[in-house]
């Protein structure tokens, strides 16, 4: 057993498939080419910032696929491992459904909703910091305890 590759243990070939050096090396070089393309694409003006973003993410995704498929050996992995890979990213996209909230409402990027000065400053409603023990009780409904 010591002299033979461990991969021969498994009848199914499975994940113990030994990958050839040229594949790994070629994959690395190809990833580096993609990296340079990423950089080039970011300096190139496609006319619209959205296209730029999409292109950048597309190249990153291609890179990710090559890392997962070849380096991580999903190419030879069991069906179960493949399902987990797809499910993992599937649920990730599901989570991006959160953005649906922001896309479907007229979102207001509001800042300066109060001054940054802690104790009043220009604001007539100073944030109470540290919070006061008793708030000012004004109006007709001052509610005595008990």
């Amino acid at each position, binding site marked *: 057993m010591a002299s033979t590759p461990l991969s021969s243990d498994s009848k199914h070939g499975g994940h113990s498939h030994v990958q050839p050096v040229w594949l790994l090396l070629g994959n690395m070089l190809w990833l580096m080419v993609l990296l340079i393309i990423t950089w080039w694409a970011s300096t190139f003006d496609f006319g619209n910032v959205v296209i730029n973003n999409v292109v950048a993410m597309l190249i990153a995704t291609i890179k990710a696929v090559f890392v997962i498929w070849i380096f991580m050996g999903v190419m030879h992995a069991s069906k179960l491992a493949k399902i987990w890979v797809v499910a993992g990213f599937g649920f990730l996209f599901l989570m991006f459904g*959160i953005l*649906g909230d922001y896309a479907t409402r007229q979102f207001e990027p509001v800042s300066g909703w109060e001054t940054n000065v802690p104790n009043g400053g220009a604001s007539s409603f100073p944030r109470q910091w540290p919070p006061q023990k008793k708030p000012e009780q004004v109006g007709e409904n001052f509610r005595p*305890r008990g």
Partner: protein
Amino acid sequence: MSAIPADPNVTAVSATPRTETNYLNADWSIKSWLLTGDHKRIAILYLVSVSFFFFLGSIAAGLIRYELTAPAGFILESETYNKVFSAHGIIMVFLFLIVAIPAILGNFLLPLMIGARDMAFPRLNLLSWYLFMAGGILIMGGMINGGVDSGWTFYVPYSSMYANSNVTMVLTGIFIAGFSSITTGINFIVTTHKMRAPGMTWFRLPLMVWALYATGVVIILGTPVVAVTLLCIIFERVFHLPIFSAELGGDPVLFQHLFWFYSHPAVYIMILPAFGVQSELIANFARKRVFGYHLIAFSSLAIAGLGFLVWGHHMFISSESMYQGVVFSLISFLVAIPSAIKVFNWTATLYKGNIRLQTPMIYALGFIGLFTIGGLTGLFLGCLGTDVHLTNTYFIVAHFHYVMVGGAVTAFLGGLHYWWPKMTGRLYPESIAKWNAVLVFIGFNLTFFPQFIVGFMGMPRRYHYYYFAPEFQPYHIMSTLGSTVLALSFIIPGLYLTRSLSKGAKASANPWGAHGLEWETSSPPPTSNFDQIPVVLDEVYDFDPVTEHEQDKAAQALEVPSYLSNEAKSAESEKEKR
């Protein structure tokens, strides 16, 4: 039919001879417990620690209830009250509900049920307990050292900028406890996939295993999201990294999105294993295969999947987009269907069964009633129009207590009683346990039903005072009364179960005459679970109510007493022999 006859009277006599060494008495040293890789011992470690946390959480609950009997309070200051209800929520959610059924019953049963020697990763399993304890200790430490007053939901910006309490430490504890959850989830998934005994096909799995598998999926997909979300609050408090800070242009509502993206599925982490326990109990005590096995199995997976699509129904009025609210409401109504299917199927299982009203069965029947109410009141909150009025009130408090306590805790108690002989090798006293199960049901309803009414009237949750609205008081008094009964009914099992450890009659391998691989091995099981790995040839829940009924009749004719007393007698006679 199987090698072991289905009739309990026969089983009790012809039980597998009790092996002398089992997982409990294999080694008595403390070290052997703290460094164990045995899933059964880890389950016991979890049982002890989770019971302790449950006790602490219950004390907090009692304080809340007593404080609220008076409109202006009479025990606590407002600040203390806030810390107490936060402690109650955090302990019960993160240290009890999420852990109780999966980590205690699930850990103990999963390998036994599928015929494996252990979990796939025993050391990871032990690590999970240590992470849980580390998290628990940090959480308790934070509560002692300054307390935490932000509620278990930790809404920003209150928790990130305004809370003066020790939020950071508690959040760190929850973060670590989350990883304990994740390791348990990974173990469940891999064990179910890879460790099944020969012949144990997917559709021969007990429904408990299906439920635990679905739970594992929810855990590994959801928990990391909340972990990183809570980490962002820690970053904001400690390193000033402004992630949700409204002052700097961040969005506090985003926190709620991410939080509920986990915390809604977390509700299913709590209730799915309870469904599993429920299916086991119903099948065994109705002596009948669960009605619609496939539908129940798939509805567990459907709930796990759909559970990730409804987080937005916690945010209908939190300035979420109206359109998204509509979509989430629709999916929430859809997710109610698999739950309804389960309830109907359990009821239908009783039809033409051979029902035995023993303690676990009483809990299981109570579960059906309470969960039906809990689930249906969920529709009030999933329905957009009524949610606007009812959310953030006691209505929601009552609703999730009906699901969490009425569902998860009832199922946990039922399951604990059911598998107690297997876990400890001892029988608990049946009659007192039976009456106590009824007491839980009464106490629970008395505690939480009035909260529906007071919630509909508009009493907001997390309120310390209501002196300005004295019309709420009668309901709070009723609720506190009920909570006292409920507390009593939680203390009694603690006492008699502990007592049964030394005084209880010894249990045979299969005291219920149940089916399932866990009953094939001795009680308590040996360290390696099975002397030989079993090969499964039968379908799951292979009961035969008709034959059993005939056997019962024959036994009655012979005036053989019921098997439990029979069991006790045989144990006593064994004692005498010694």
